[in-house]
């Protein structure tokens, strides 16, 4: 059995290639919303922050740092997804306008 590290490295390598392929196809028209979307997605680090804050017997330091981390990550998730959608709503073709 491969170790966890090996598996993670495989996952990292594959995800990077998928990312490069997929992002390459995004139209320059949407580069700004793309950036806010990927930003919201990478705020998945909130999962790590929850585990740190919510660990049994977490020290006060852990709780405070985790608390700030969750707050920043959730801010990114909420504002990131909402503003991406707000931007995308504005992109219209001529026909759809009326």
């Amino acid at each position, binding site marked *: 059995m491969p170790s966890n590290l090996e598996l993670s490295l495989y996952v990292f390598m594959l995800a990077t290639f998928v990312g490069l392929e997929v992002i390459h196809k995004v139209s320059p028209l949407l580069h700004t919303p793309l950036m806010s979307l990927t930003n919201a997605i990478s705020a998945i680090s909130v999962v790590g922050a929850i585990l740190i804050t*919510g660990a049994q017997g977490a020290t006060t330091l852990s709780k405070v740092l985790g608390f*700030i981390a969750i707050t920043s990550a959730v801010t990114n*998730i909420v504002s990131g997804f909402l503003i991406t959608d707000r931007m995308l709503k504005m992109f219209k*073709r001529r026909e759809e306008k009326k």
Partner: protein
Amino acid sequence: MAHVVHYIYIISAALFILSLKWMNSPVTARRGVFAGEAGMLLAITGTLVSQHVFNWEWVFAAFLIGTAVGIPIAYIMPMTAVPQRTALSHACGALAAALVGTAEYYRETPHGFTMVALVVETLLGFLTFTGSLMAMGKLQEVLPQRPLTYRNQNLVNMLLFAIAAGLGLRLILVPTDTWIFPIFAGLALLFGVLLIIPIGGADMPTVIALLNSYAGLSACAMGFALDNKLLVIAGALDGSSGLILSIIMCKAMNRSFANVLFGAFGQLQATAAKTEQRHVRSASAEEAAAILEGATSVIIVPGYGLAVAQAQHKIRELFDTLTRRGVDVKFAIHPVAGRMPGHMNVLLAEADIPYDKLMEMDDINSEFAQCDVALIIGANDVTNPAARNDKSSPIYGMPILDVDRARTVMVIKRSMSPGFAGIQNELYYMEKTLMLFGDAKAFVSEIVKELPAGVAA
């Protein structure tokens, strides 16, 4: 129950990839946002339900505050301020990663590879945090936009980074030396500030994209440290997205990463600017309107000046008036126009200009030769023919919009002052160029007033 969450994470990861895939066209993009939201919701709920989470009051308070801050940011922020918001969100994401890394270090004092991942996570996290805040300050114009340089700047920066990296290495080898950690974190924070100080406003698109990549990689490193594959995937996606965008930006300026980061572009040339008086032709709004009225095709070239003047809605009026008169109006968007990738597209879309009229540089350049009027609003260096002709110019080789091939060139500009790079623009002295001096918003609205509203006979 506890391992169900791993399957939920797999679904989340798939949704994130789909989300980015659907971003490839404006038609499916909103579905992409939905997929991203669904993936996020699944992952968070899965974590909360299946893991043994204690200290609920802390977790929930943080969720409430984050939501309360996030909603107004998303809805109140004007579109011209999107670059600042993006910089802020890079700072938040990086801070979250850095703090989780710090907490993890003091909790476990991990060894071996986990410690390597943790050092990378905190180093990137802390430097991206302060770096992004600096970028935000520059974009908000709280800090000076021009590059600040001093002697041996690069040497100082390199040295500082080397010390930080050395301390990181020491932490990896001897993780129990806890006194090193605060110094290491402090140096990373300081390095982030120093890294952005010498970077000027026009290089912001590249820097923002690069910071995006760093923030993603630090989340990715967190995935390695916590052995969570979903974090690895999401971080890698964000990291590769930032990387691609910064490569596109660098190419569009014909510069390397090293040059953007350490070149302090746009302050050396300022002294070389010639003071000799040269003749330019200027015109009034009335004259400009008369020329536009007689045109059959017009290409508008927007730049950062448009965002500063908030002129996008007035330009929409001009677009409507001209289109009603049967004039073919298109927009030529240079990849680095504005302060972040795609900045101009978002502003023009906000003003309800249909996106099929927004053309990329490579698609529109051949059309300038057949166009009657190229109207440049708030763009400068990206239209400078010196990039094509003058080997001694600092921007030589940079791909530009070929506006000088249009029959008439009109430039709305506040004054003759050179652009960000401090380079004289030959375009302004050409025979066919008309300079329209004034504020972009005011001038465009005057042109609109001068144009008869009705349909051309």
